Each structure stands twice: as C-alpha cells, then as structure tokens.
C-alpha cells in the first residue's frame, strides 16, 4: 500500500472522526450536566444542515452571492435555530422530567428526534429526497511532498478540531464553563453556591445543539448532500462513541469518535480481504461489534471514570 493511499485512508478517518467526535461531545455534555441522554441530538444535527440549506436558498433569493458571507450566514442561522431547539428541549422536555426515571427522558428525547425527522421529511419541500448541498469551500489541492490533500477537507478538519478545542477551552477556562462543571459535579451544592441551575442547563443544551449544527453544516459541506435520515445513524454512532470513551468525559468522547471512524474504515478495507464474500457494506456491523467487545472489556469506557452511575 503506497503512502498516498495510506494517507488517504488517514484523511478519511480523520474527517469522519471529527464529525462523530462533535456529536459525541454533545452527548457527553448533556450527560455530564444533567445525567440525561438526549437522543434527539443526531436529528438536531440534521436540522442544522437543513437550516443552513434553507438559509442558502433564502440568501440566494435575496441576492447574496459572496461565498464567505453565505457560509457565515448559514452557520449563524443553523447555530441559532438549533440552540433555540436545544434550549426548548431542555426547558420543556428535560427539566420537567428531572425527577423521573432517566429512561423517561431518554424516551422523550428519542420521540422528539423522531418527530423532528418526520417533520423535516413532510414539511420541507420534497424533504424525503436527498438534497444537494452547495459547494462553498474552495476547490483545489495542497501538495505535501507526494501527497495531494484537498483544501476543503483540510479546512473542514481544521474547523472541526478548532471547534472542539474551543469548546474544551470554554468549559475549562471560562466562568460559564466553571458553572457547567459545577452543576455537572453536584447540582445541589452548585445551587447553594448561587449558580442559576436553570440558566446553566439551558446554556449547556444550547451549546451542545449549536455544536450539532456545526457538525451538520460540516457534514453537508463534506458530502455535498443533506437528507432527512442522516441524524439517525450519526446519533447512534455519536452515542456509542461517547459511551466508548466514557460518558461524561470530554476527551473520551473525542477519542471514541475517532476510534469509531478508524474501526469503520478498517472494516471497510479489511473485511473483503478476509473473505471476498463479505462486502464492505458490513463495515458498520464490524465497527459496532468491536464497540460491543470493547465495552464488554471496559464497561465504564476506555478512559477510567472516577465514579460510575447507573442510567
């Protein structure tokens, strides 16, 4: 296998990994703050992608054609809409069920995700068809020795990593981040200390959903397509990745995301070599099986947790 091909596999894995990592970080944030599994996260990602597409169409109708302006507007609209939806879910679906068994919250958010998906399919014009997403990133390649790396892939990778690093810095260095971590550790004491619990929860959900919007727009730009079903698989993968890395653990979520992407790519390549009758379509089966095995080996996640909670 030549260096060029190997590096292509690495780039593929990194691109997928960054998107999965962003979804996983969202799951981890929600769980860390409220012990809540928000299963609508994947569909919020899809909503972000569609909002960006709708903004693009709208901006085009108004006559805006500058790519950077378009990108900024699309991202802004996606982030605002999904943050609002996230806050809505927190305020009306999750907080009222705070004292109910966690499984109820899981179910409610799962159903909400389904409702989101079907709403987009039904109400967006020809929503059940896959929609081409505009190509707004510069075409062209970057030569690194004998490797040719595409500019748009590099930009997306950079943006994704920057976002994750930014969120991490926000959580560890700012006062808001401190409040989020305090609530995550012990919400009772945090309230006693004067932290506005409700506000922190709303902000966390808004933040996590905005992250999903970013991932949705990146997904759209990378594949040049959005369709109403992408949230389902991405949600499941993000969730598995978050659990694999250790739910509630920020670095674990990132690790889990990249690990899953690596497993998928490896599976797609290795399976047909092991047996020609296994098509590479089984890569998801392979990746999820490996996740099951890894979880059986390390139930609380790959990165050791200080304390475990049963959900």
């Amino acid at each position: 296998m030549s260096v060029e091909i190997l590096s292509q596999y690495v780039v593929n894995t990194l691109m997928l990994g960054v998107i999965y990592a962003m979804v996983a970080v969202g799951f981890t944030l929600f769980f860390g703050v409220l012990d809540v599994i928000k299963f609508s996260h994947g569909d919020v990602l899809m909503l972000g992608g569609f909002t960006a597409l709708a903004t693009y169409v709208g901006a085009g109708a108004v006559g805006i054609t500058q790519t950077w302006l378009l990108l900024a507007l699309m991202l802004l609209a996606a982030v605002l809409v999904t943050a609002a939806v996230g806050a809505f879910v927190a305020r009306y679906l999750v907080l009222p069920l705070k004292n109910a068994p966690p499984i109820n919250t899981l179910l409610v958010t799962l159903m909400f995700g389904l409702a989101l998906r079907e709403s987009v399919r039904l109400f967006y014009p020809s929503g059940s068809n896959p929609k081409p997403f505009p190509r707004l990133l510069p075409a062209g390649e970057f030569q690194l020795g004998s490797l040719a790396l595409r500019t748009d892939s590099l930009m997306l990778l950079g943006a994704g990593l920057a976002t994750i690093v930014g969120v991490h810095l926000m959580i560890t260095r700012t006062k808001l981040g401190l409040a989020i971590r305090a609530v995550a550790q012990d919400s009772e004491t945090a309230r006693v200390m004067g932290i506005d619990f409700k506000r922190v929860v709303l902000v966390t959900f808004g933040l996590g959903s905005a992250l999903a919007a970013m991932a949705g727009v990146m997904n759209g730009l990378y594949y040049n397509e959005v369709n109403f079903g992408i949230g389902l698989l991405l949600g499941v993968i993000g969730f598995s990745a978050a659990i694999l890395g250790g739910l509630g653990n920020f670095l674990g979520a990132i690790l889990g995301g990249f690990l899953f992407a690596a497993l998928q790519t490896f599976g797609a390549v290795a399976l047909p070599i092991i047996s020609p009758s296994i098509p590479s379509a089984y890569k998801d089966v392979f990746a999820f099986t490996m996740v099951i095995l890894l979880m059986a080996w390390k139930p609380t996640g790959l990165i050791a947790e200080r304390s475990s909670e049963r959900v």
Partner: protein
Amino acid sequence: MKTFAPLSPWWAAPLCAALLTVSAAQAKDTVKIAFIGPLTGGVAANGIGGRNSADLAVKMRNEDPKAKYKYELVVLDDECKPNVGVQVATKAAADNSIIAGVTHYCSAVAMSTVDVYRKFGMPVVVWGAVLPEITYGNDYKEIHRVNGTMINQNEVAAKFMSGLGYKRYAVIHDTTDYGKGHNKYFSQFLAKNGGQIVGTFGVTADQQDFTAELTKVKELKPDVIYFGGLTPIGIRIRSQMDKLGIKAVFEGTSGIKSAAYHDGLGKELAEGSLSFIEGAPWEKLPGGLNFIAKYNQAKYNEPPEAYGPFAFSAATLIMDAIEKVGPDRKKVRAALNATKDADTIIGKVTFDDRRQNIVPLISKYVVQDNKWVLWEDSEYASKKRKLPGM
C-alpha cells in the same frame, strides 16, 4: 281523496324517458386500476414520472367516447422500500374493486410483492423494475412486465465498453437483489468480452460514505467504475470519486438514467457519465412524439423520466384488456397473458411464456451539458469530446 296521478302533465313521461336514455348512455361503470411506484425517497423523480404517465393514459382513455368504462387511477407510494411495498400491494390487491395494477420501479420492491399479487389473484404489469427474477424466478400468471430486464442491458453495456477499449473495471453495486443482479450479469458478459474486473464492492442502498471503498478502488487503478445501483448513491459515489481524485469513467445502468442524477451533481461532475436503458428513446418510438406532445399538454410539473413511456404502455395494455373482457381479474389476467404484437407507444409488445416483454433494443446514454443524450447523437460519439482514458 287526491287522485294519484304521476306524470300528469303530458310532457312528463316523454321527458323522463328521454332523461333516462341519456343518463344511461352517460353512466359508464367506473373501473379502478392501481399505480404503485416510489413517489417519495431518492428515486421519487422516476416514480412521479411513471405516475404522471399512467395518469395521462387514464385521462386520455376517459376522453375517448368509445371507451366502455370510466377509469380511475388509484395511486399508492411504495417508497422504494420492500416492507412498505408489500403493505401497499396488499392494500391494493385486497380491494376487489381494483382490477389490475401498474406496478413498481424498484426491483427490490417488485421482487417482494409478487407473492401478494399471486395470493389475491390481481394481474399486474411491471413498468420499471429490471430484475429478471421478477418474471423468470416464478411462474405466477399474474405478473407481467413491459420493460426489459437487466440481462440485455448489461450484455450491451459490456460489449460497448469493451469496444471503446476499456480493460480494467471496478464494480460497485448495492447489496439489494437489484445491485447484485447487475453485478452478476455485467461480470458475466464482461468476462466474455475480455474485460478484467479488478475489484467488486458491495455497498448498502442508503450508504452515505464511500471514501473507504473508493480509496481501495483508487489503489486498483481501474479505467472504468461500473455502478450497479440507483441514483441517490450514484450521486454520492460520483461526487466522492472526484473528492478522492479518481479519474475513471463512471458507467451506470438504467438506475441512474434520471434528471435527478445530473441535477444533483451539477454540470461538471455529471459530464461524461454513461447509462444504458432498454427501449428506444421516446423521440424515436413510434408513438413517442405523440406521447410527449400529450404529456406536455397535460402540464404535469415533472418530466416523464426514463420509464414514463413504459408506465403509459402498461396502463394502456391493462385498459385495453378491461375493454375487451370486462372488469374481472381472472379474465383480464387471461387477456394480458395472451398479449401478442400489441401496438403501444413503445412498439409492439408480446409477452413470452413468462409474461416478459422482449425488448430487443438497448439505448446508450451519456451526460452532455447536464442532460442525458443518446450516445449516437452525442459529441462523444463524433469524437469532439472525450471520455476519461480515451
């Protein structure tokens, strides 16, 4: 006591008689036929085109004063999913007022519904699914098909591509019966023509990411990527091929011959993609120009797409059978079974012993300037433009 005097004014009786005769002449029985196709989902363009064409056939028949019955088209959406297809097929077949059906574009769906139509004894004419096993895999007298099968398609395709000088092929196919069928027949015919298949990749019908498979393909350096599948993943594969810098010819089947293909990819990426489809292009069909004229007159929002003429012919054949023997499922089935040299807009239709219409002609298409153009009419044939690797 009032005298009972119905129809007392002198003109009442003749008026009633006149009205009755006129209304008896007007009151034709309504006969229902079903149309089932993918109206939503990735291949909706083809399903809607087929629906519009069948609807046109029904409308035209209803305007014909010589028709014995008034026809109503019951439209059902199978979403190109076998489980949904079985549900709507059962719904149509269990309704005894629906006499026959114009069914299915997606092969996977058509394959799973043959048993349903058999169980309820509802004759159907397939208008778009190309998997051979739909008619040849069983001996159900209810199942007919007007379009060709993928056997002929792939035979012509293999010969044509070898003729252009391409030697190395990578096959990407979806793992439904449809994709697997294409893989089987294309590989078979390519081997006969001396081509070499450097790798075969099975992918799921709704897969998003093909970068892993395509990276492997890149390593194998094929001249042509043969794609056995439908438009949604065709678009993704072509787009990701470009992302990975694979400069091979993209050869598809009738599954990608749809306006949605080049609309979804944009002009540059779609340029030079190939597809093959049975039947002559409608411009060259005997009834083609008339069909398109009437279609445009009816002002449908969507084009008929590749299989519209077949849906139109299927509906016409069914209505002809009903006119001949009346709205009875068994009689219609017998009439359809016996179809020989029937004149339709796609040419003469004869069903063989498995009720498959033998369509001898396969047309080759290439995308030129964001449109599917017949190969012989294109600038690629006249060598003004070149496919990659030529």
